[in-house]
């Protein structure tokens, strides 16, 4: 079993913490894991990427070779497109449609639709809106994790739930509940998974 995931977004969107949830799940379910992430300068509203490699064998490289990633989780419409060259031919592209517009030349939505049109089997959602049906909009990244989880059968749903609980426990039961709901809502979007 090997599963390589790329997470992309903007500094402050929770790219690294989402990646850590995936890594914790992998560890709990007995897999090896390598999670490469970005700290420092880039976190100030800049483009941020993290990579999570899950395997039952030794993982050599922290970085995913081009054209081999199993999944891209894009927390923002253009950030995932930036790392498209990493995705495998049959890889899964999951993206939020909620833009973070903090640059002057942000592309039109038509441009984004055109690009998404080229990626077969992509899943594009208004993650914030879905999160809001469960609670606050900040759980949008957990909605995306929920969607992605349906494509990583090696990781159990119960594991995700446990790790999400552990991750948010410090912030109180309400936050835990809304994140669990966001996860379920995301997972519910994918019919049959895989």
């Amino acid at each position, binding site marked *: 079993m090997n599963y390589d995931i790329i997470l992309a977004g903007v500094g402050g969107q929770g790219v690294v913490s989402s990646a850590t949830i995936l890594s914790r799940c992998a560890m709990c379910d007995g897999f090896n*894991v*390598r999670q*490469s992430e970005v700290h*420092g*300068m880039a976190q100030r509203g*800049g*483009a941020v990427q993290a990579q999570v490699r899950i395997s039952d064998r030794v993982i050599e490289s922290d970085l995913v*070779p*081009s054209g081999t990633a199993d999944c891209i989780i894009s927390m923002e419409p253009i950030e995932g497109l930036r790392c498209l060259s990493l995705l495998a031919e049959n890889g899964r592209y999951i993206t939020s449609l909620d833009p973070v517009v903090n*640059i002057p030349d942000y592309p039109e939505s038509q441009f984004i639709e055109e690009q998404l049109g080229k990626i077969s089997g992509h899943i594009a959602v208004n993650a914030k809106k879905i999160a809001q049906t469960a609670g606050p909009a900040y759980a949008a990244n957990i909605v995306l994790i929920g969607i992605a989880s349906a494509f990583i059968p090696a990781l159990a749903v119960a594991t995700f739930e446990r790790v999400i609980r552990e991750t948010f426990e410090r912030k109180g039961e309400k936050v835990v509940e809304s994140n669990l709901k966001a996860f379920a809502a995301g997972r519910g979007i994918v019919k049959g998974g895989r």
Partner: protein
Amino acid sequence: MDRLLLLGDEACAMGAIDAGMSVAYGYPGTPSTEIMEFLQKHARNYGIVAKWCANEKTSYEGAMGVSYAGRRALVTMKHVGLNVAFDAFANSALQKINGGLVAAVADDPGMHSSQNEQDTRYPADFAKTACFEPRNHQEAYEMTREAFDVSEKFNIPVVVRLVTRLAHSRSIIRTRQPRAQNALNRAHVISDWMCIPACAKPNYHALLECQPRLLEYSEQSAWNTLEIKEDFREYGVITTGLGGNYYCEVAAALPSQPSHLHIGVYPIPIEKIRRLAGRVERIVVIEEGYPFVEEKLRSVIRDPIPIQGKMDGFLPYEGELNPDSVARALNLSVAHGLGIVIDKLPSRPPQLCKGCPHHDTFAVLREIVNEYKGTIITSDIGCYTLGAIPPYEIIDSASCMGASIGMAKGAAEAGYHPVIATIGDSTFLHSGLTGLVDAVTSNVNMLLLILDNGTTAMTGGQDTIMGSEQLVSIIRGAGVGPKHLHTIIPLPANHEKNVVLLRKELNYEGFSVIIARRGCIQHLKKSSKGKAAS
């Protein structure tokens, strides 16, 4: 035996804890910062001291004191930090290290968050000491532990070289039974820690005499593994650090498996290299960083054979390696995935947070520059370095920590006017104080603008070594009179007032200091959260 999911930095910190380290000092710097942050989080649990210092040199000197007293010390810094600590570092190699002294230094190939991509294996080699180069988290843990033993065995400081992709990668490590801390046991032979020539000469001699033993250790070390393939002689591969990972990631696709030497600890194992070289027609070197091993090989291999690496363009000289660049160099194909190329995506550089105090300081400077065309604004390193890029484009230089003051003084004494130096509070305390003394004593015609946001923001908001009030006293104490020492609050409401004050001080023919004091937004959020929780 705990299984922990840790950053490479944290695995290194855990290794130090389990090695019985007593005291850690350091100065923040991406990608090394999380070593100290981890130690601080667990300091009480393990009964250790873990403290930020004013800069890397004072950190290193503190660690020397710990070693002198017989305990184990860790110093943490980023690669350029070792330049600051270099005097202490290079000379400490000639002292008889007592308690283990390990410097964990994180390089940043690819310059993700740095002004250069210098390779710490060179300073380690220059100081004639040992250097470990872990390639994964378990190695970061094990090697840091071993580094302390090596330090005490050979009485030398030892370097652990990390790189960004390991420092900021997470994986699972298994810890082993911890070793107890050393008891206090001060050094007793005075000449061992004395650098007057009468002592330095024998001490240097001792360091040279230690070299063959160090080499022997490296030759025997299990971190330097040579795997010989008798039936394939066309070429052999030497890898170091993360170069080894990328090589192993792609090597399965090679038509034949070549002999392979992986180097994890330096000095380079000369005999192992010669054994490999004697069996192959050509050597390929894959190392993260400068072509350090590649350069050394040429003086080590007896019958010269072709060497391929970074110097001949076999691999890119600049930037960091990755599995693709290594695959391409080895003539292996790289998967083309979806084959979709999108070239119209706008870049998204980092930017100042909404409400950042630097924003308002830049607005004041903008107005001054519009008025005094050609004003030189030297600057420094921190969040405010973003003043170089749009929409601000207001600062003219950023080089090394503290340079803004010295450069402004130089330009002013060369006859240029007006000149303003801008520097953050943490950077000022790191390396600006000595520049301040120079500027005060020559009453140079320049304005020093200190951007005091109460924290070391760029590296994640570590506390500045001293508070805002103390900062003012120190400047006053250096001899800056109250007439030309002011504090302003950079807020839109104060804009006009602040411009007037800056104008006035620019027109004053002499040295003046203005402190723009307002807290970093992120830091305020964090500390108010911290208060709410406690």
